[in-house]
């Protein structure tokens, strides 16, 4: 009952939300979440594309879905790195405000 465009719009919307979050929020935790959101938004697109193309004659295998799984794995790893960095930063700065990290410049 959902057509491809609808799904794509959804993913696009989520991706933009992700971008907005990354750009606008100062809380590192939120930023991390937004980053995840971006990746997952793309996942939706991939899956839906995969779904469509699986029906078409050109290629039988479910590349999109496989890709999505891979991305999930990667995203998990990335998240773990991100959180550990978050800890380090909390230890040094006693704050998780993005704008505090501005000693290196010029």
């Amino acid at each position: 009952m959902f057509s491809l465009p609808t799904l794509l719009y959804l993913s696009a919307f989520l991706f933009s939300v992700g971008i907005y979050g990354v750009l606008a929020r100062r809380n590192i935790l939120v930023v991390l979440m937004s980053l995840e959101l971006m990746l997952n938004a793309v996942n939706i697109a991939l899956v839906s594309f995969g779904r469509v193309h699986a029906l078409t004659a050109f290629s039988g295998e479910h590349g999109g879905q496989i890709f999505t799984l891979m991305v999930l794995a990667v995203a998990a790893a990335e998240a773990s790195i991100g959180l550990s960095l978050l800890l380090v930063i909390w230890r040094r700065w006693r704050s998780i405000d993005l704008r505090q990290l501005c000693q290196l410049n010029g």
Partner: protein
Amino acid sequence: MELTISRAEILAILPAGILFITGLVQLFADLGRSAENKRSEKTHLAMIGVTGFLLAFAALFVQGTGASTGPLYAGAMTDDLFGRMGAGVVIMTGLFSTLMSGSYLASRGSNSAEFTALISFGAGAMALLCQATNLVSIFIAIETLSLAVYVMAGYFQNQRSASEGAFKYFVLGAFSSGFLLLGMAFIYGATGGSLSLADIAASDGQQDSLFSVGTLLVLIGFAFKVGAVPFHTWVPDVYQGAPTVAVGWMAVAVKASSLFCLCRFLLFTGGSHHLAQLLAAISVVTMLLGNLAALNQQSLKRMMAYSGIAHTGYLLIPLVIALSGEGASAGASIPFYMFAYAATTLAAFGVLAAISVGSDRDQIHDLDGLSRSRPLLALGFSVALISLAGIPLTAGFIGKLLILSNAVQHGYLLLALVGIIASLISVYFYLRPVVSMWFREPKSSFELVPASWGITFTVAVCGIATIALGLFPGWLIDLSKRSVEAILG
């Protein structure tokens, strides 16, 4: 159907495999005693690393100089000369970085196996990236190596600058991989569900503007990795914060592998004239901004960072030419330039590591009178700088010669002119360290910890290599040419 893995397929992943195993071995070897004696050089780690890298390198030779084995693992990757060249650069860099890391880290009291292991892991990922021929494998390889590098960048946890740099790298990196992935999705969608580059090239979705945007987004993802303007903002900060050895490693290996992959990607997808134009614009801005911003830097690492950005700019020129249809062979200058760049940069960072052993010295004036206290280091660094400036009798000159002559050959006079002007500007800041090393007297306060054999060895070898490649580049150039022809099949 039963599962078969052909000899070729084994051979193809041999280098990467060896590297991953090396990393594991290093971790295990250091198990148990990792916590204490972080101050010892732990030569055994270096030894393991070196053996690993040498083995991997040997594996490359086993793979030989044959053109290509065609698609392997259902088109996920291939094993061709081009890939091997890329792997070669990466492995070389890894080898020397491992050599240097021991004493450097020990002097900072944080020498544990993770670092060398991360180098090995990263190297493995990079080797794969150079061979990857499928969006999925490309993405995975990139992410893997990025994760390794994020950690290395923030390796000095007790240093604010390190953590800050690492985090910046991470956030921006994740941001960019978002776009990379989006681009891949677009391509996937536009080309009717094809993921392997071959299929993409074959498919008919090329004209679709969705496809063009997709390639553009992928390009942006890579542009971030190689530090092209306007996606370069992380470079200086990360370089400054990260351990000097790690910086050397990143500067060369990450850039090299990403560029090899990008080159392969663009040659396959064939891009479009529009993309070529955009890329040209990017390269012009990158060359100019990199060199100009480097002019007044006081921190050597930052200076090298901007110079790295500038060199990315030069390296984009052959891609522009390759994209614009005529002269895909222009890409041949990339492998050579990367080798030259590797030798030069490693020599430079070796010296930086040497002077910052034991303390955080990376100001230009910290080099004052180095030619008296450490003539060899001074000489090596000077050679490196001269090569970076593209002055004859060095590898850097031949690299520039290749790129610029290609540009002129195919009528990109403007690009060539900008390149010339940029390198003219660069002469100024490349000479500043030379001035302090040779023309100034050492400061009395300045006491150098004698450089470890690993660093000295690296500087010496890379310095000599820089000169040698400047004098007898013929064979490498031919190899590069053949490798690019190998991609095109």
